[in-house]
């Protein structure tokens, strides 16, 4: 039991149950949604960019705790960042922010929001093939 609680750390469960920046932006600069057909996870992100800075960010979606908490954490991190800075965020950053051991089968859940962000904000080309992880 101890192990499980460590795996699903309090703050992950908290972000899952009380997602931050959840919803939609009225007139977003970028909007993009992706799903992970393998598990049915869905994450969509709206971005409002002003003067090269992420003025507002909202996400919506449904799916497992890992995918939704990871999206919530990502929005918190990116809000207020310059777009240039946001662009440097990579897989490692997202995984280390989650702070748990993600099994290979779940890695797509954890990275779905980053994929959405990258695809939405600067075109799919930026996202390396998923199979190359």
């Amino acid at each position, binding site marked *: *039991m101890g*192990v*499980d*609680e460590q*795996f*699903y750390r309090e703050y992950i*469960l908290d972000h899952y149950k009380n997602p931050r920046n959840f919803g939609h932006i009225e007139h977003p600069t970028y909007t993009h949604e992706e799903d992970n*057909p*393998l*598990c*049915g*996870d*869905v994450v969509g992100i709206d971005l409002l960019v002003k003067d090269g800075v992420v003025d507002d960010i909202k996400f919506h979606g*449904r*799916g*497992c*705790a*890992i995918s939704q908490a990871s999206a919530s954490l990502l929005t918190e991190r990116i809000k207020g960042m310059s777009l240039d800075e946001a662009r440097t965020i990579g897989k490692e950053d997202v995984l280390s922010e989650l702070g748990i051991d993600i*099994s290979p089968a*779940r890695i797509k*859940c954890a990275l779905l929001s980053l994929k959405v962000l990258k695809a939405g904000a600067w075109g799919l080309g930026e996202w390396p093939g998923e199979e190359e992880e």
Partner: protein
Amino acid sequence: MATFTSTSRQPFNAEHVRKDFPFFETGVAYLDSANTSQRPRHVLYAMDEYFEQFNSNVHRAAYHVSEVATERYEGTREAVRRFINAHSTKEVINTRGTTEGINLVAYSWGQKNIKAGDLIVLTILEHHSNIVPWQILAAKTGARLEWVDVDEKGELRLEQYHALLEQKPKLVTFSQISNAIGTINPAKQMVHDAKRAGATVLVDGAQGAPHQGVDVRDLGCDFYAFSGHKMLGPTGAGILWGKRELLEAMDPFMAGGDMIKAVRQEGTTYADLPLKFEAGTQAVAEVIGLGAAIEYLEGLGMENITRHEREITEYAMEALSELPGVRIFGPPVERRAGVVSFEVEGIHPHDLSTIVDRHGVALRAGHHCAMPLMIRLDVPATSRASFYVYTIKDDIDRLVEAVADAQRIFA
């Protein structure tokens, strides 16, 4: 022949059966047998024996060990014939599994017999391997696909099926048992009605053969495909059974060595059945393993297996239903094979799998290769526990405890 080491000739007892399976020394509560089963020593020994004592190719060489290998390889064909009560071993084709069997029919029978405007009837319960080949065939030929829907219990809407039969489909294809939610379809009646409507009928026996068994002549279908790895055999060996006249009239699926009678620059004559459909070097050890698996299953008795699974399924459905917020998909236990697909309120199936895994419980989460069904049930995925000859109540107790723990964590 490997000696029959099973304790199973005594009255059926899953606790004893389990001792024949080295895997259980891991302590894992394995609840994913609809995906792939475990293998008893009897199967492992039969394969080892081939590797150690008569490893060689089949049908090709005149030396002794190859004769032994060929004899064992062909021995499986006879064991399969007996197991499914086929008329002749000529009708028993070795494949890699159900998927290959269905693709063989879609290609070799379908491309010759399906024309633009023809109707192919399948069901919403199907595994992707009994969907995608027909979609490809329909796209190539201009045929039309129609799907039989299910009711809220996950059972086929037979009145809709009958209405579709009135449109005189060329092909009807459905699974004997749904891998995703365990529905046992009224296969014999469905085949009978489809044949009366003039259709050619394929039955996907991937779950039926391991859990219910089959008598293909009694069932009355034209093709029957199944996989060895779901019935205690190794991966890489499966069977397509087909009626001889149909198989005779079909072109080969794959072409190459072994499937020929004579090859000349001007052209080739094909081997007779069944080798016409077995091009190239086959999975000899695996086919031998499948033969041993069938022997083992026959030793246990298919009625005993079905009865045991029903008992476990009933126990699991009751125990899971006692947990708050658990919803079980699919029909009542009388019309359900050893599969319990369920969801737990507030916990995504993947999170549930991850947590129960930490309790040593192997539980499948996902769409179970039945995405159209998941969409129909309006769920992104389900958790699925599935059982077999070696499943014991303790496995279920461990599952229920682990699910309860997940509920505490997510509370």
